[in-house]
């Protein structure tokens, strides 16, 4: 108790310096937390993938499609419960900056496969009745202020022309990690319009989402699906939804790696600041440390004083920084809108923040703590701060 009091009193002797150091720590811990959350957001799609969903796509690449009749062949594969077609629409709402994902889907099987999209029964019925209807996520609705009955005109980049869709339903996520920034509409409507405008491109599907009975058989079922189409014009590649999503992350891996590296750079920056503070503090108090030792305190006790002060500062900074992480990341996530569909501070991030702060506190005290413990009483008493 006495020891703690001494540590805190020591820490508060130089109020300005302590205040500045803690402020620096707060900024660093906050920045670190935000960057970790950005990295988490990158993996959000893979995190929310269900183990009983597979994704079948053209083996050449995602930009190639598959004929519609594959749907029946996939449905016939043993272990498959349901199949839904989905096409990436890639439309622009007013400006390319307002990016959000849009999919043309088979509504009935698709929404049955994604129970995490919670849609009100009457809204879903209204959507099913309206060929030009659309279902949008809560976050998307809030970002652009869309309400039920509003018309969203999309300018097609893949499908030429302007496509007006009417909002018939708004879905909520079952969990915080559910992506509610998407828009869905009828695959049949898009396809029929294509039949009139560009018949050669009709009856083509981007991906099939496949629901299976038993997640433990996913590898075997995926192979069985792909075997059906070997040596056809559109060979397929089937993988679990998670692997499919991780494929996207892997393509931008360099950016994720860069953000991770940078998030640790800020820890080193604050380590330099903190180590400097502790070095200056210890240098000024050499005389006191010598006095303590002259009074009979062991070198270990003196070293503990230095470490205690350093760790106390680090933890205070960490606590404030973590507390600030929540409102700041909420504001940042809101500003990023639909670019980062899911932006949540995870428990692992907080644990990392605490661990980094502790490491900074300990590392910053190593040199000053050692010299304080080793100081010879005579030299220390003679020294002038």
């Amino acid at each position, binding site marked *: 108790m006495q020891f703690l009091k001494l540590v805190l009193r020591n820490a508060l002797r130089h109020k*300005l*310096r302590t205040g*500045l*150091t803690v*402020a*620096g720590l707060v*900024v*660093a811990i*906050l*920045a670190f937390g935000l*960057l970790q959350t*950005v990295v988490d957001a990158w993996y959000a799609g893979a995190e929310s993938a269900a183990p009983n969903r597979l994704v079948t796509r053209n*083996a*050449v*690449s*995602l*930009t*190639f499609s598959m004929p519609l009749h594959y749907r029946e062949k996939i449905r016939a594969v043993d272990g498959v419960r349901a199949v839904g077609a989905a096409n990436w629409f*890639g439309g*622009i709402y007013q400006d*390319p900056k307002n990016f959000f994902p849009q999919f043309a889907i088979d509504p009935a099987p698709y929404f049955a496969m994604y129970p995490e999209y919670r849609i009100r029964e009457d809204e879903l019925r209204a959507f099913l009745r309206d060929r030009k209807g659309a279902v949008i996520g809560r976050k998307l609705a809030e970002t652009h202020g869309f309400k039920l009955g509003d018309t969203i005109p999309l*300018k*097609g*980049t*893949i499908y*030429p022309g302007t496509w007006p869709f009417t909002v018939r339903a708004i879905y909520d996520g079952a969990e915080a990690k559910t992506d509610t920034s998407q828009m869905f509409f009828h695959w049949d409507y898009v396809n029929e319009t294509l039949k009139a405008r560009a018949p*050669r491109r009709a009856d083509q599907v981007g991906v099939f989402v496949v629901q299976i009975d038993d997640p433990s058989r996913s590898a075997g079922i995926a192979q069985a699906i792909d075997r059906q189409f070997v040596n056809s*014009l559109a*060979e397929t*590649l089937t993988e679990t939804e998670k692997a499919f999503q991780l*494929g996207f992350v*892997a*393509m*931008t*891996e*360099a*950016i994720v790696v*860069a*953000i991770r590296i*940078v998030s640790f*750079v*800020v820890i*080193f*920056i*604050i380590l*330099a*600041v903190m*180590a*400097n*503070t502790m*070095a*200056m503090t210890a240098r000024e108090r050499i005389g006191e440390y010598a006095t303590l030792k002259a009074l009979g305190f062991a070198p270990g006790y003196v070293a503990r004083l230095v470490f205690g002060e350093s760790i106390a500062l680090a933890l205070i900074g960490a606590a404030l920084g973590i507390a600030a992480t929540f409102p700041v990341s909420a504001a940042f996530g809101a500003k990023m809108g639909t670019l980062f569909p899911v932006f949540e501070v995870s428990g692992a991030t907080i644990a990392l923040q605490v661990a980094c702060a502790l490491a900074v506190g300990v590392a910053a005290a190593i040199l000053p703590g050692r010299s304080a413990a080793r100081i010879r009483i005579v030299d220390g008493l003679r020294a002038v701060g």
Partner: protein
Amino acid sequence: MKAIPLAYSVRNLWTRRLTTALTAGGMALVVFVFAAVLMLDAGLRSALVATGQPDSILVTRRAAGTEIQSGIERSQAAIVETSPEIATGPDGAPVVSKETVVLIAQPKRDTGVATNITVRGLGETGPLLRPQVRIVEGRMFRRGTTEIVVGTSIAERFERTGIGERLRFGGREWTVVGVFDGAGSGFDSEVWGDGDQMMQAFRRNAFSTVVARLADPASFDALKARLESDPRLTLDVKRERRFYEEQSEVLSNFIRILGLTLSVIFSVGAMIGAMITMYAAVANRTAEIGALRALGFRRGAILVAFLAEALALAFVGWAVGIAAASAMTLVRISTMNWQSFAELAFSFRLTPEVVGQSFVFALAMGLAGGVLPALRAARLKIVDALRAA
């Protein structure tokens, strides 16, 4: 007014070496991040600018932002081809390449993870339209065959892209016969082959894009106005360079905004470090400051001396940071460009602007960290300061 010699400030830094090293080290890290971000952005831009030729145009379907999304019917391509503004080659034929651009997923050598790469089927004069591209190994593909050549970044990173090896896509085997160097342009991350062969392999009836050289670059506006108002065509006409610049906009903005925001946040940490150091410097030398004032140096001179010390500290941080950043020019980054949805490799590029901007940034950090302590030093009263000793 007599100034305090600069040596006074610099030698003070040297006396407290550990503190100086730690403070400058923190600043160096911030400068490093700041410079690296600008270098990355400069590298990305130069790669995409180098991809387009100033006198070439690129035609896509209207509102298709990328080559992949675009599709041009044969009849429409023929109308573009016969425009009088387009240059003619030595054989009298127009310098036009009707191209097929597709993405294929190929596993990377080191990770085995499949990434999209751009495959470009060129028309007859395709290579002629890209004078920056040279074959560095093997030879060019022959027309009418399933031979392909690959860019240097592809040959480095992807499986089965060595000369003599075969890639399988579009239901055929394609033999790699050469490696080409695109002089740092986006072509380095592409695979090239015969456009007609690719159209057949992918069972396509429409081209992706039409690339053409203008006889006179100034005739661009007239050609654009005429083609875009032609009721038979639903096309966008752009200068090739402008088109590729637009391809980098999202990624470039992302790098800039994220990177610069981080630099500013990090710089707060470094500024606080400088402030702590400078406050300590002032506190330790209170008596000295009193003596200097007693000797006749004015408040202004004291202020300048301490600011100079903070700036010198920042200068050391800048020099170390930029030296470390210049080592990054050896690194080549490859990532997916969101707009084209394909792999793009580019390097960190150290331009004079980056050096200048990071210099200003570092000095601004030093100034911001040093100004309050320097003011405190300048405001000390002679008697109090001398008594503090």
